[in-house]
């Protein structure tokens, strides 16, 4: 009788254990952080930039998604040459020396180049490649500037002036001769 | 009646007298027979247990008792098997048998004449199975005297 009870108990335990081979679940968490602010880094040549009436330094920190308007102020004798915002040429979007940037969604570079007003825009160089080059452009003098063939400068020789000078000398000589001849006639009469 | 019995008794005694040993040496044959016997107990079922290295094995004890054989004889236990466990689904698992100590030839166990119980332990050893399942095989223990 005890043997029979043992067998029944073992069989029951066996059945319970087989049904426990079931399903298992385990979780994993995915996380991400979106920053609340982004940095705008400025490269300014030949002027200054203002944001909210305040000149900007090398960098400013703005809230994410912020729409910011910048005022572009060239130095005296300079005008806007090119504006690169977040890698894109947005010069055409500047209106009344102001540029409104799209919502700020990542760290961005703001590069603005002003050029002397009497120099044409040099489209081959959208913006200075190095600080050395910037120094060269800033210190350029009229003597080293490219001469325009149609502009006359002191010391230049003009053919028309030469012809006029010869004519003037001849006229003076003729006048002297005529004046001397008239005096001779008056003396002999 | 009493007289007749006495006469008969005397006659019996006198008739036994001529049967006496010779003083010269006569062989006497003494014999007895002892039948050989033994009992060998083998396990009816051997269930392999999982080992720490992932293999499966089990020790099986074979016991011989009341072994009484002719001089020079012994009991030899051998196995007949394909040494392959097969699962219900057809997966196969090979196994081997490690004989008991001090065994020669193809035997897995050997016993000698001894009235005390003798036990030989053999080991059934299987490898690491690739598939799970209920595996089984039948092995035949062959006991003989040699």
């Amino acid at each position, binding site marked *: 009788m005890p043997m029979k009870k043992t067998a029944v108990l073992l069989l029951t335990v066996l059945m319970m254990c087989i049904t426990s081979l079931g399903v298992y679940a385990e979780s994993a968490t995915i996380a991400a952080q979106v920053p609340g602010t982004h940095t705008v880094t400025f490269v300014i040549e030949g002027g200054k930039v203002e944001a909210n009436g305040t000149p900007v330094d090398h960098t400013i920190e703005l809230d994410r998604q912020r729409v910011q308007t910048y005022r572009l102020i060239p130095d005296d004798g300079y005008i806007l040459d090119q504006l690169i915002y977040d890698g894109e040429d947005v010069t055409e979007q500047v209106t009344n020396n102001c540029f409104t940037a799209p919502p700020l969604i990542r760290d961005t570079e703001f590069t603005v180049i002003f050029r002397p007003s009497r120099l044409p825009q040099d489209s081959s160089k959208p913006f200075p490649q190095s600080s050395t080059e910037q120094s060269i452009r800033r210190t350029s003098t009229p003597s080293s500037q490219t001469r325009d063939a149609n502009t006359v400068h002191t010391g230049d020789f003009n053919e028309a002036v030469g012809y006029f000078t010869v004519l003037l000398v001849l006229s003076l000589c003729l006048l002297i001769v005529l004046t001397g001849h008239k005096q001779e006639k008056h003396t002999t009469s | 009646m009493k007289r007749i019995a006495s006469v008969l008794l005397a006659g019996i005694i006198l008739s036994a007298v001529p049967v006496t040993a010779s003083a010269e040496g006569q062989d006497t044959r003494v014999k007895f027979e002892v039948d050989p016997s033994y009992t060998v107990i083998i396990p009816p079922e051997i269930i392999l247990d999982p080992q720490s290295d992932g293999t499966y094995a089990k020790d099986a004890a074979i016991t011989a008792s009341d072994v009484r054989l002719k001089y020079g004889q012994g009991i030899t236990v051998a196995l007949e098997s394909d040494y392959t466990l097969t699962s219900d689904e057809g997966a196969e698992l090979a196994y081997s048998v490690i004989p008991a100590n001090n065994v020669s030839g193809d035997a897995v166990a050997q016993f000698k004449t001894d009235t005390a119980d003798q036990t030989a332990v053999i080991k059934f050893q299987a490898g690491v199975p690739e598939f799970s399942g209920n595996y089984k095989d039948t*092995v035949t223990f062959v006991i003989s005297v040699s």
Partner: protein
Amino acid sequence: MNKKYIAAASAAAVMVSMISVPAFAVDYPGGSQDTRISTAIEPTYTVTIPADTTVAFNALSTDFGAVTLESAQIDPGKAVKVELDASGSLKNAADADKTIAYTINTADNTAFTSASYQTAGDTTALKIDITQEAWDAAFAGSYSDTVTFTVSYVDAE
């Protein structure tokens, strides 16, 4: 990257041997006796799944580890199936209405929903993909989501 392990084994131990069975006796002059050799090998397997992962801001594709059948001793004709339950949206901790859409893909850019494995070493590498548009539209804050891997023992397909 840390891995998470799921090990499964039936707790059943075949205890038939504990049931007393009379031994076989062989007497002189000898003979033979059949003995049954048996063993019950329960299915076992270990699966590793990806651990908690942080996606860097603006990252379009992030390594998300792999689902791997590390070890397996299963019945012939059976397989270990791993299913993924993911909402596809990272939720802002401060405002659950603000979300960032993501997908969990395999190396060949196929969306991962489930896979079955039969051999130890079988693995599926995973990655978390978020589009640039999703990042650009995201509001500032902390985002997260919990995905669940469900492992089951099934018939092989």
